[in-house]
């Protein structure tokens, strides 16, 4: 287990009491505003001293109240990306980036600054000061600063919440690259289902200071009962391989023997990816569809049908590519006569597979 957290702490309004062990990769903490996410991250960072608990990263203990062990923040070797950036206003971007490096221990694994700068696309900003940067640029610098401190764990507290969608789209890939290329464990706080879907290796759902659900991202996302992400976030995650880039701007993926098409993505042929198929983008058909503009059809058998609170139901289909979820109305369930074990076809629009649902390379670990 790469990150192990156990915490008890009384806050004015809520009691924090949780414990979770997370594998390496990205652990997403999510939950409503006020559920205690920042408090957990601060306790891991050492900015808050919990009443009792223990946190370790890759077996290295940051604190353990039973042993009376308490590392001050500056000895924890973390890269904390704060929600508000917290760049040093009096330093240039370059100086901000190298701040953590001054203090990193001699023997620490060092990122190559040039590589990080290039990865984040902030080379042209190096001599400017934070005040002159746009929100997205600031956040990229903050990520770079955290990364170049040679951290053993990266903490990111809603790093994208203050940004508009366009800027979110700019930055999300950098976190994916962190996960996939740098392989530092990351504890990531977010409200956004899209971010969870793209980044999370495992998810911890917080509610009133307790961890109410905890598991791999694909499981938690496929569970409509997990409130924070919302019903619109439910979806399946498929593992696919890039098989061809077509001349008409489409990329063909191999999903367990079936071809899926989506608008050109930058990944190389042969690469293995995860893509999220949002349940609400899937149409079901009880016979092979014909004459439709949708290019992607996955056939499979109905596995489960779960009716929701409203007019909808989540139908889970067993396909050769893996399980696929569809969110349709109960009325359609009846109209199509869907039943467990029945043969069925999932129709997915090409353009509905948005780039933000395509994850990076599948993590090897």
């Amino acid at each position: 287990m790469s990150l192990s957290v156990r915490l008890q702490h009384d806050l004015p309004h809520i009691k924090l009491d949780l414990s979770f062990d997370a594998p390496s990769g990205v652990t997403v903490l999510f939950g409503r505003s006020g559920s205690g996410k920042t408090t957990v991250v601060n306790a891991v960072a050492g900015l808050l001293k919990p009443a009792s608990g223990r946190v370790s990263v890759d077996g290295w203990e940051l604190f353990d109240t039973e042993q009376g062990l308490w590392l001050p923040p500056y000895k924890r070797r973390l890269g904390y990306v704060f929600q508000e950036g917290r760049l040093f206003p009096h330093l240039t971007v370059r100086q901000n980036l190298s701040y953590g490096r001054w203090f990193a221990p001699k023997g620490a694994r060092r990122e190559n600054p040039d590589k990080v700068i290039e990865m984040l696309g902030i080379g042209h900003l190096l001599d400017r000061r934070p005040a002159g940067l746009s929100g997205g640029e600031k956040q990229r610098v903050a990520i770079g600063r955290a990364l170049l401190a040679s951290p053993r764990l990266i903490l990111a507290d809603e790093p994208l919440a203050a940004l508009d969608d366009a800027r979110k789209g700019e930055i999300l890939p950098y976190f994916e690259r962190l996960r996939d290329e740098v392989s530092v464990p990351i504890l990531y706080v977010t409200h956004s289902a899209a971010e969870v879907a793209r980044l999370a290796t495992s998810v911890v759902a917080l509610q009133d200071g307790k961890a109410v659900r905890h598991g791999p991202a694909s499981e938690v996302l496929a569970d409509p009962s997990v409130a924070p992400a919302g019903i619109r976030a439910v979806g399946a995650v498929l593992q696919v391989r890039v098989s061809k880039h077509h001349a008409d701007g489409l990329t063909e993926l191999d999903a367990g023997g079936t071809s899926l098409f989506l608008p050109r993505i930058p990944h190389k042929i042969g690469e293995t990816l995860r893509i999220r198929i949002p349940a609400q983008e899937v149409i079901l058909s009880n016979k092979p569809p014909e004459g439709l503009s949708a290019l992607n059809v996955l056939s499979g058998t109905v596995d489960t049908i779960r009716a929701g609170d409203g007019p909808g139901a989540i139908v889970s289909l067993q396909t050769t590519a893996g399980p696929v979820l569809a969110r349709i109305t109960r009325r359609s369930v009846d109209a199509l006569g869907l039943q467990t074990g029945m043969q069925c076809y999932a129709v997915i629009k090409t353009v509905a597979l948005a780039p933000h649902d395509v994850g990076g390379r599948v993590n090897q670990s």
Partner: protein
Amino acid sequence: MGWLGPDELEALRLSLRVSFWATLVTLPFGIFVAYALARWRFPGRQVLNGLVHLPLILPPVVTGYLLLLTFGLQGPLGRVLAEVGIVFAFRWTGAALAAGIMAFPLMVRAIRLSIEAVDPKLEQAGATLGAPRLMVFATVTLPMILPGVIAGAILAFAKAMGEFGATITFVSNIPGQTQTLPSAVYAFLQVPGGEAAATRLVVISIIIAMGALLLSEFIGRRVAARVAGS
């Protein structure tokens, strides 16, 4: 400065020296105390705060007298310090001590306010990046409070240039040793016909103090702009 007599010139030179050193030497203490008052909660914090303000509140003569009793050759501290070769009594160093102590509350107030304006979250950010406390102070807090430090230092300098009551009471009014500009003004005012000379000296000290103040506003604004990153 052809219109200044040699004694007056000497007094001016001495005042500048006294004020300069008073400011320079108290500055680290001022920053430290301001930081402690702004950021730490410790028992006796309010006592420290009161002590710092004391010279502002007491009649300067009283402060001077207390200094004389403490740091004089017979005083408890004065005797100890004399053993290690540090003598304040009746030396220009004593004038600097008096001026420094009188100016200290002004310096601390200015710096304290600027420290309170620094977002502790930036200091936390420094800590998470691996900087120990003192390094965080040196690399984050200090650069950001620089305008306040400069304002505080120059205000203290200006105050030191004008300090008189405590100085003359503590280290007397010895030309070339402890006769600062204001002491010289005092001496002139004690005798008939001294007003013209006194006025001349007052004008000089006003010019210097005002110059310093304007400079502090100017530097403060420049540094603030640089620190704010624009």
